């Protein structure tokens, strides 16, 4: 079997996707250095070819729909091992059957990509709630997140719409990447650690919030299992009220 390797970027992935779609044999796609690439595969480095990437996108939108393209983007951002080959199988099905394939919800190829995209959309919505900012001495709002999926770019429009009058940073510490919003302009930059000087009032506001959080629980209804279902332990270390 042949495995197309890509550099980890979306454009590189789309290049690999286009190459794999052109191949008559059954293929796989994997990120360079990914362990699941397999020992007995023939490896091909895909490189990045903007024309091929655009052709792959065009195919998805033409044979599928805008929804299909969103599913591909979201499933890619899941970063779940095997998602790339899952997307390949899904796009092959779209290419063969056309837009109707999107309705084949019980088909494993469709179901897999829909499920991956659903996880990414779900975690994005969760983090609209779970992002916690601290105010720094220069009044910048800083938040550290460690989501399972690469949702930073999906989160940003939400915070841009509501915190447009502030300067803020959302730092994905798991991927050493940050969205920096400064005076109305947005940039993404690698960021591995940040030295933070908190605003003098910060500790006081944090204490108010923690106390509020503790107080609102009705003790006759304590249900930590339900709480764990809604706020999984893995997310708690970056949540002010659980710190």
């Amino acid at each position, binding site marked *: 079997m042949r495995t197309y390797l890509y550099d980890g970027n979306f454009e590189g992935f789309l290049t690999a996707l286009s190459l794999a779609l052109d191949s008559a044999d059954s293929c796989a796609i994997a990120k360079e250095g990914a362990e699941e690439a397999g020992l007995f595969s023939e490896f091909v480095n895909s490189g990045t070819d903007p024309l091929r990437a655009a052709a792959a996108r065009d195919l998805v939108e033409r044979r599928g729909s805008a929804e299909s393209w969103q599913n591909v983007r979201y499933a890619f951002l899941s970063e779940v091992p095997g998602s790339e080959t899952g997307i390949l199988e899904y796009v092959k099905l779209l290419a063969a059957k056309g837009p*109707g394939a999107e309705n*084949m919800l019980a088909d494993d190829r469709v179901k897999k990509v829909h499920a991956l995209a659903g996880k990414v959309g779900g975690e994005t919505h969760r983090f609209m*709630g779970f992002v916690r900012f601290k*105010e720094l001495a220069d009044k910048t709002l800083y938040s550290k997140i460690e989501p399972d999926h690469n949702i930073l770019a999906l989160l940003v429009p939400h915070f841009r719409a*509501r915190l447009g009058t502030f300067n803020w940073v959302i730092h994905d510490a798991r991927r050493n990447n940050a969205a920096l919003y400064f005076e109305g302009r947005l940039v993404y930059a690698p960021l591995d650690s940040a030295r933070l000087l908190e605003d003098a009032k910060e500790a006081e506001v944090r204490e*108010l*919030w923690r106390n509020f959080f503790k107080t609102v629980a009705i003790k006759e209804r304590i249900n930590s*299992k339900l709480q764990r279902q809604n706020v999984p332990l893995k997310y708690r270390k970056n949540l002010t009220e659980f710190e």
Partner: protein
Amino acid sequence: MDLDKKLEILADSAKYDASCASSGSDRGGAGGTGAAHMSGVCHSWAADGRCISLLKILMTNECVYDCAYCINRRSNDSPKAILTPDEIAGLTFEFYKRNYIEGLFLSSGITVSPDRTMELMLEAVRKLREQFRFNGYVHMKVIPGADQSLIDQAGLWADRVSVNIELPSDKSLRLLAPGKTKATVLTPMSRLADRISASKDERRSIKSSPAYAPAGQSTQLIIGATPETDREIIKLSEALYDKMRLKRVYYSAFVPIMKDSRLPVLLDPPLLREHRLYQADWLLRFYGFTADELLDEKHPTLDLSFDPKTVWAINNLHLFPLEVNKAPYEELLRVPGIGVTSAKRILRARRAGPLSLDDLKKLGVVMKRAVYFVTAGGKYAGLKKESEEAIKLKLLEHKNPNGQLDLFGEKALMKEGLAGTVSGQL
């Protein structure tokens, strides 16, 4: 008293209000801070598993009334506190910009008079909107008995407004809430309903006209403090949805915080009953059921062992099994184990080809319940001779694989996903 202590007292006294939704509004726009999200956002979940989406506080826990069920009753000599409009607006803003919350839920005990209370609450929300230019979500309680012009203002500042009925009948109100009657609660409610629908009509023709409580109106009923049956409660909710066009009715299991000879002695809040009422409420709002279909005069009580849709289906076996490849959406919704999402998926998936029983599972249908009520391509995998009793026994087996009955405890609740029904988010 410092702010921390005040907040503690006023959050503690507000927490028995079940409403937590931050949905139904898409306020926002240029300048200012904040926006509302149509489907609402939960920010955290407290130790009782309830979602936290708003800074839910009372302006004050002082009260001129002496309602038996209420923690803030006049005769309760717990410490009293009051927050100024500036403190409320400032606190909301500080919490909001750190993304702790979606906005403010402001309620209050009655200080001095209903009018004075309402004026101060309006002042807090007006400050938040005008001074802080805050576009996040605001849920405001309307104080029964306040002047109509004050009540009218609430909907201009808030996304959602609510008046709590609390006790599901006039008789119970008179007994436990001297100073309140059905009329004092329903008058402001219907006034708000009129204003909300008038504003909706106006905005249909003139888009720029101001929204009046765009996220609508809700209310709350306390469950188990008084003798009303589930049928009476669900009939009341149905009327509130149909006639007052309420967005939500919340049910709050009575927590006996206060001792009073007029109140029942309960060991634990009736959580399972509350859960069943939420399920029945969901059936009214999203599944096309009527109250009379779920409960009649001979059976006025929701079954605690089965969800109300399963009970309805077992009592109407002559309508089943349903062929999933042909049945319309409205009928699919009535199958136990098929929800709104899976019914929509069935409609979509069968456009691509006929569905088998195995496919249903992949679409998210809960087959252990649905299996008795559906066929796929004519195939049926339920019981050979279907009968009410046989299906009930089978369903019970699934609930209690170890043969132990735990119908009233936490386990049964958890299995059925209590989370979905009390969160208030959709």
